[in-house]
């Protein structure tokens, strides 16, 4: 008796402050035009956005949490990538 599952979409909104599009939530729609309209009606009711992306949820490839160690831990030891790693004499001032 269950209906076939309708397409799920991920909604990304760029807010007024000029930041990048950010994931706002999901919705169901049969096609991209309806998805965009629904995103506008569901996720920007309080003036949250100036631009919307909708992406079919099944088009997203995600990293595997089981591989989080291999994927992300090697970056943690590269402290020389951060400015605080380097000493600059106080007399030089802000750099």
């Amino acid at each position, binding site marked *: *008796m269950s209906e*076939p599952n309708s*397409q*799920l979409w991920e909604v990304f909104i760029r807010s007024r402050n000029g930041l990048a599009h950010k994931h706002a939530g999901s919705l169901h729609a*049969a*096609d991209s035009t309806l998805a965009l309209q629904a995103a506008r009606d569901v996720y920007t009711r309080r003036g949250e956005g100036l631009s919307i992306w909708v992406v079919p*949820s099944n088009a997203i490839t*995600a990293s595997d*949490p089981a591989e989080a160690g291999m994927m992300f831990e090697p970056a943690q030891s590269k402290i020389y990538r951060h400015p605080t790693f380097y000493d600059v004499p106080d007399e030089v001032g802000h750099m």
Partner: protein
Amino acid sequence: MYTQALNAPQSDERHLEDADKSARFEARVANEQRIEPNDWMPAAYRKTLTRQISQHAHSEIVGMLPEGNWITRAPTLRRKAALLAKVQDECGHGLYLYAAAETLGSSREELVDQLLGGKAKYSSIFNYPTLTWADIGAIGWLVDGAAIMNQIPLCRCSYGPYARAMIRVCKEESFHQRQGYEIMVTLSRGTDEQKAMAQDALNRWWWPCLMMFGPPDQQSQHGNQSTRWKIKRFSNDELRQKFVDATVPQARYLGLTMPDPELRFNDATQHWDFGAIDWQEFADVLAGFGPCNRDRMAARRKAHDDGAWVREAAQAYADKERARRAADNAVAA
């Protein structure tokens, strides 16, 4: 990410309850880390959350009906706009919550089927009728007030998508309770008839609101496990007490009388003591014997059934368009 596709039932692995994975999971939760859709989780955690989030979603959607009952009769244009916006918000909240539940592997269609098939529960409060305009004030003030007590701690729930949905819900709901209280203030400063209407609404909604927090702690089925998993941060009785303490002074300001002769401030505990709740009534309403259970389900089934041809049409058009594009591409190639 709120994706359904990523959560296609994973092999049987998750039923094996691998001791190692289980220990790591428990440690992460204990450490206040968020669990995300792709993460390994115990089957019972998935089941508990699916049940809780989908019941929460059903409650938002069924909850549109008692208030929606007054949209066409709101007494001023300002009230009409506010009420329509508020009930629309409930719809949005249901939508966010279904999406959060979907990340656990059940589709919205399945979850809605469970509701319409009578297999899923929703908040008992929405099985009471809205008889007068004051009920709209009382719902905003008391029902939303009680809901907020429940929902704020859920913003820190261990399951990421649920917590994020609740953050959005709480932000949007901040006007709901004020909207209701403003109606109560206006009525309680109005004519004698209006004051009586406000008092009557408080009398009818007060006890069902106290029941909204669920059975007393000694009887709660889901309490301990949910607390350990950081799905639930406060017990039913703690939240209920918090609600009573916050609400009694608000009722006093309105000049209304609480329908509880045993209500009194306890100097020792610094809390308001209140009378016994009729848990039989709660059980009856949950079992389907409230004043509006049948009407609520009939309305949801009708909307679902009447809308089926629209959903089919949208899907049929999408399929045709895809086929037409494919044909165009084939010609071009």
